[in-house]
């Protein structure tokens, strides 16, 4: 899952220094538009939908991995 998230973030933002501890805003300096773009790419890749209210609870890469695990989203 980490590798897929890294790939999606790189494709959308060009940022490639992404670890499980990376914070989208603090470390990558992404803004809302970047985050929404990543969400769309993630949804496309996994053919799923993340409710908008949940998007803003996902601050770090580890949050996305845990979110995917809880909802049974698999590679």
């Amino acid at each position, binding site marked *: 899952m980490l590798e897929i998230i890294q790939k999606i973030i790189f494709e*959308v933002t060009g940022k490639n220094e992404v670890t499980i501890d990376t914070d989208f805003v603090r470390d990558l*300096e992404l*803004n*809302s*538009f970047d985050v*929404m*773009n990543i*969400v*769309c*790419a993630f*949804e*496309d890749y996994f053919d799923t939908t993340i*409710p*908008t*209210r949940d*998007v*803003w609870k996902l601050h770090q890469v580890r949050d996305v991995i845990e979110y995917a695990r809880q909802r049974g989203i698999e590679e």
Partner: protein
Amino acid sequence: MAAVTIYWYGPERPASRRCLVRCAALFAGEPLAGAEERWPVQESEKGKPFFPLSPETHCSVTHSGDYWLGAFSSEPIGIDLQIHKPGRLAALSRRFFHPEEDRYLQAFGFSDFYRVWAAKESFVKFSGEGISGNFGRFSVAGPQGILSRVDGLQLRFVPFRCDYTLCVCTKEISSVQLVPGK
């Protein structure tokens, strides 16, 4: 009526928090020395910064591309800057915008995508709600284009740089001044 001062920094800038307190000092007409001690910053639950020692000073911050901007006023305010860059504009519009906005953008080939985005985000930053489940529940566009008022709030686009869209939202704007940060 709100007089709005927008301070901007380019790519070579201090950290966001430092930019904010320096701008607060500039807005108050104070020296920059000691600004961090005089202007402590806190954030609301949704992340909107405020100055607990100066509740009459309102601010909103945004960053996009090479720029960081901080808007200051004596009235609550929201601001958003968007660099124009490739993205899944149609998918983002369909997924996150109000159906009225999506219809408008589809009709005009998404040329106003960033104006819709910046208007919406400045609106939710005004309230401090930020982008949440409410983002798609209000529309800043009608069949004829982007609205200048939504729910009694004024939306004003401010010319900034080529390939950027900047929007300010407050109750009633009297003036907008763009000032380089120090």
